[in-house]
C-alpha cells in the first residue's frame, strides 16, 4: 500500500519527464522543419504549413475542450467536498466513499482518448507518444483516486488557451512550446477563488479501515507464571544501575526553557543554595555547636579575669564583640579570649604598677594558669 502511495507521490515528475522526452523529440523535428522552410519560400510548402496548422489547431481545440471539461468537473467535485466542518469520522468516511464513487464515473476510455489527442496534437510518432502516455497513466491507475490526482497534475502542468485565435498566428513550434514549456496558466475564475480552497483532490486518501487491535487481549506466551511471588531480579549491579538511572535522568534533562528551570538545573548540579534558603546550609561542623556557645563568652573570663576594673571592662567588651562575629568558630573565639589572658599575664608588672589589677585578683590569674597547665 505504501508502495503505491510512493509511486503516486512521484508521479507528476514521471509524467513531466515523459513530456520532456516527447518535447525533445518534437523540438528536434520542428527545428529541422524551420531550417528547411527558411531556406526556401515555396508556395507548396506554405500551403502545407497552413494545412498543418489547421489540422493541429483542430486537434488542439479538441484537446483544450476536453481538458477544460475535465478541470470543470474537477472543480465541481471539489466544491462539493469542501465544506469546512468539524471532523466527524463517520461523515468523513462517508464523504470518502462518495468521492470514491464519483471518481469511478470517469471511464478509462476518456483517458485513452485524451492521451490520443495529446499525442496527435504534439505530432511526431503519434502511436509511440500515446502508448508512452498511457503507460504512465494506466500503470498506476489502480486506485481511481490516484488517477484523478494524476490528471489534475497533468492538467496543471499544461497551458489551456481559451482564445482559439491565439493559436492561429503561431507556428507549430510555438504551439508545442506553449503547451509544454509553459507553466500552468490554468484559468481560475474570480468566483472560484473567493471560496475556500480545498485540497481533498490533492493528497491521495486511502480508505484505511481502523480495525481495533486489542493490545493486551492475546493469548499470553505462557512462560512465566504470574502468581509466583518468591522471584527476585538476581544479584544487583549497584554502579551499573546507578549509571543507568543517571542516564535516564539526563535523557529528559533539556536546555532550560525559563529561569526556574535554569535554577532547578543549577540546584541539581549543586551550584546554588537549595530551597528552603537557609544560611547555615552545608555548615555541618557548626551544626554541632549550640548558639549560646557563640554568644555567651563571659564564662571563659570567669576563671582568670578580675571581677571589676578596667581589664574586666575591656574583656567584657571583647566578649561582646566576639559574640557578634559570625565568621569565627567557637574555638577561635575561645582562643581569642585566652590570648588576652596571656597578654595580660606578660604585662602583669606594669598593670600592677598602674593599679589596673588589684592584689586580690592576682592569685586568680596565676591559679588558673596552674590549672590550665595541669
Amino acid at each position, binding site marked *: 500500500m*505504501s508502495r503505491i502511495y510512493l509511486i503516486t507521490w512521484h508521479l507528476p515528475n514521471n509524467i513531466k519527464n515523459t513530456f520532456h522526452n516527447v518535447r525533445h523529440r518534437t523540438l528536434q523535428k520542428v527545428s529541422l522543419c524551420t531550417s528547411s522552410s527558411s531556406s526556401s519560400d515555396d508556395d507548396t510548402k506554405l500551403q502545407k504549413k497552413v494545412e498543418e496548422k489547421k489540422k493541429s489547431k483542430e486537434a488542439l481545440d479538441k484537446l483544450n475542450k476536453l481538458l477544460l471539461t475535465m478541470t470543470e468537473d474537477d472543480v465541481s467535485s471539489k466544491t462539493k467536498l469542501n465544506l469546512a466542518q468539524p*471532523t466527524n469520522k463517520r461523515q468523513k468516511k462517508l464523504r470518502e466513499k462518495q468521492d470514491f464513487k464519483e471518481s469511478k464515473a470517469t471511464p478509462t476510455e476518456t483517458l485513452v482518448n485524451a492521451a490520443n489527442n495529446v499525442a496527435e496534437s504534439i505530432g511526431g510518432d503519434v502511436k509511440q507518444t500515446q502508448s508512452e502516455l498511457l503507460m504512465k497513466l494506466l500503470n498506476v491507475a489502480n486506485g481511481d483516486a490516484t488517477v484523478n490526482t494524476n490528471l489534475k497534475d497533468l492538467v496543471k502542468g499544461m497551458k489551456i488557451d481559451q482564445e482559439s485565435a491565439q493559436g492561429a498566428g503561431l507556428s507549430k513550434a510555438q504551439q508545442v512550446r506553449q503547451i509544454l514549456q509553459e507553466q500552468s496558466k490554468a484559468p*481560475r475564475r474570480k468566483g472560484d477563488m473567493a471560496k475556500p*480552497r480545498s485540497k481533498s483532490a490533492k493528497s491521495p486518501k486511502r480508505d484505511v479501515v*481502523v480495525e481495533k*487491535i486489542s*493490545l493486551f487481549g492475546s493469548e499470553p506466551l505462557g512462560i512465566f507464571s504470574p502468581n509466583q511471588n518468591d522471584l527476585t531480579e538476581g544479584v544487583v549491579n549497584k554502579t551499573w544501575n546507578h549509571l543507568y538511572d543517571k542516564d535516564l535522568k539526563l535523557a529528559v534533562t533539556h536546555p532550560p526553557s525559563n529561569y526556574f528551570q535554569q535554577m532547578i538545573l543549577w540546584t541539581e548540579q549543586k551550584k546554588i543554595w537549595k*530551597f528552603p534558603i537557609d544560611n547555615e546550609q552545608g555548615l555541618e561542623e557548626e551544626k554541632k555547636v549550640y548558639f549560646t556557645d557563640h554568644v555567651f563568652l563571659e564564662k571563659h573570663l570567669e576563671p582568670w579575669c578580675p571581677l571589676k576594673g578596667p581589664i574586666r571592662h575591656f574583656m567584657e567588651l571583647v566578649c561582646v564583640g566576639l559574640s557578634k562575629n559570625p565568621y569565627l568558630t567557637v574555638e577561635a573565639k575561645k582562643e581569642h579570649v585566652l590570648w588576652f589572658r596571656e597578654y595580660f599575664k606578660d604585662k602583669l608588672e606594669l598593670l600592677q604598677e598602674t593599679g589596673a589589677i588589684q592584689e586580690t585578683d592576682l592569685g586568680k590569674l596565676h591559679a588558673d594558669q596552674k590549672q590550665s597547665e595541669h
Partner: protein
Amino acid sequence: MMNISKTLLRRGLPQANITSNILLSTATIDDKIEIPKRIPRGPTDILRALESTVGRDPTAAHYKYHDDPYLIPLSSSGKRIFAMAQEAGRKAAHWVRQEHADLFQHREADPVIEAFVPPMVYTEESEVAVADLEKLIEMRQVVDSAVVYRVLKEKNVEVAQELEQGLLELLCYQNCEDGVSEEFVEERWFRQASKGKEFVKKTWKDGDLAEQIFSKMTPKTPESYCAIIQGMSKYRQMDSAVQLFEEAQKSNIPLNTNTYNSLIQSVNMIKENFDMRWSLLADFLTQMKNSNLKPNLGTLNAILYALSFMGNPKRAKEYVLQTLAEFKNLGIEPSLGSWYYVILTFCKERGPVSTILHDIINHLEDKEHQIRDLKDTHFFVTAMEMARHHLNDVALARRIDKLLNYGDNYNLIGDSYKESVYFRHYFALLCDNLPLEEFMNDVYFKLVPHIYVPEVGIMAEVLNQVDVNGAVEYIPKLWSDLIVFDQSHRENLVDCILNTMVNNEQLVTPELTESFAKIAWDIYSRSINEEEGRVHRLNLTGDLLGKILILLVRQKDFEKACKVMDRLDKNQQTIAGVPKIEALALFVDLCIEEKVPSRGIDCIQYCTDCGFPEANSLAVRLHKELNLDEVFLERLTKVVGDVFSTS
C-alpha cells in the same frame, strides 16, 4: 455517621434543623480535627511549582536565545550555531579553569562548591588513595579512575573487592571511555550521536581494562559476570558475551535479570533466521524462569526490540501481542519505548497498513508519562512519522501532539534532532491535508519560526500548496521567512515562489503587484550581491530572470526592468537558459509604452540572438506603435532583416 450529619448540615436550613438536634450531639463527640500529614518537600519542589506556571510562548524565542534581542537567531542553523557558541564559551571557561588551576584556589563560598573547584589531574606519578578511586567512580570519570586504579595496583595498595566491582561496572557501562559531561546540556541536546546505526556495529574495546580486571578477579563473582556480559552485549561483542554466558552456566553462576535482558536484546546478532532467533529468545526466558528470576520492564523491551527486526513480520506481530499480554499478567506496564518497538514491528514500510497506532494512542492518551527506558524518547518522533507516512491521518497526528503537550510529556521528545523530525512530519502532514488558510493561521504562524523552522523540502511543499491554491497573499510573508531562514539562495524555492507570483496574475491586487515587484527585485539584487565569497549562492537562470522581468514589467518599473534586461543581454554566455518569449514581449510592450525604442531594439536583438522566431513580429509591433525614425528603423532592420515592407 459523621459524614451524613455534615452533609445534612450543609443543606438547606429547615431540613437540617429537624435532624441536627438529634445528630449534633453525636457529631460533636466524633469530630476530631485531623491535621494533615506533613509532605516532605525536596530542594527543587518550590522551583518546580513556580516553573509549572510558566508555559511555552510560541511567539517568543527560546530562553537561551534572548540575552540580546538583536542577536536572536531564527534559522535552524543560526539557532544551532548560537547555542553551540554559548556552549563553546562554557567549555573555554572549563579549559581555563583546568589549565590554570592555581588561579582558582580561593574559597569564595563556605562551604566550598565542588562544581566550581578545578578538577584534579591524575597522572602516573600522582599520590592517590583508595578514597580517590571511590570518588571518581561516583563522579563517572572513567579515564581518571582507570589511571588511579593502575597507580594503586602499582603501589600494591589493596582495593576492596566491592570497589573493584564498581570500577568494572563503570568500565563496562562506558566501554572504557568518558561520555559527554553532564555539564554540557546544550551539547547533548544538539548532538546527533551516531544515530540509528550504533546498534549494528561492534564497538566493544577488546582486551581493554574492563576485560583485564575481569580476568584477574578471583574468585569471579556473579556480579562481575553480570557486568561484563551486559557491557559486551551493550557494545555488541556478542561472541565473547555468549562465551562468558555459557561459562557462567557451566560453573553454575547465577545471573541477574538485566543480564538476560541484554542477551535477549541481541538474539538477532547471535542467530540467523526468525525461527532460530525466536527459539533462542524463548530459551533465555525459560532459563530465567527456571532460575527464579523476575522479569522486568527491561525484559519486555528487550523482547519487543528483538522482535522489531527479527524478520517474518506476520509472526512477529503475533508474538508482540502475546508478549504484551504475558507482561500485563505479570503486572508490568509497558513504557513508551515498548510502544515504539510495537509501532516499528506493526508499521513496516513495505508491509500492510496497520492501525495499531490508534489503539496505542487510545491507551496512552491523557496521561503523563515518565521516562522508564532510554528508548522512551523515540516514541513521539516515530509515532508522528507513522501518522504521516503510514496512515496519513491528521486526527491521529493531532492526538499525538496533544499527548506530547500533556503535562511534562514534552520532556520525552528526546533531543533537537528528534524534535525537528517530529515537527517536520507533523508540519508536512497538516500542510498536505488542511485547507491552506487553516494551516497557515493555526499551524504555520504558530510554530514558525520559534518552535520549528521548516526545512527546504517542507518549505517547498508549503510554497507548492500556496501555488496550487493561488493564495498569493501569503507570498510576501513567505519570502521574508525564506530570507530569515537563510533559504533564499535555494534555487528550487526561488523558482517556486517566482512561478507562483507569475502564474497567478488574475488574483493579484495592485498592492501585491507592487510587493511582488519588490520581491523580484530583491531576488535579483541578492543574486548579484552575493556573488563574491559565498559558498551557496543563487544562480539565476535565464528563465528565472525572465520571470523577474515579468514581475517588474507588471509594476511598470521600467528602470529596474532595464537593468534585468541588460544583465540578460550582457551575460548571455554565463546565464544558463533563456527567458520565455512572453517576458521579452512584455518588456517590448513596456518600451513602447515608455516610448524608448532603443531599449526595445536591444531586446529584439536579444530575441534574435536567442533564436526566437517571434522577434520579427515584435519588431513589427515596435515599428507600428512608435513610428520609428530612420536611425532606429535602420538598426531594427539590421537586427531582424527587412520585415517592414511587407507589413
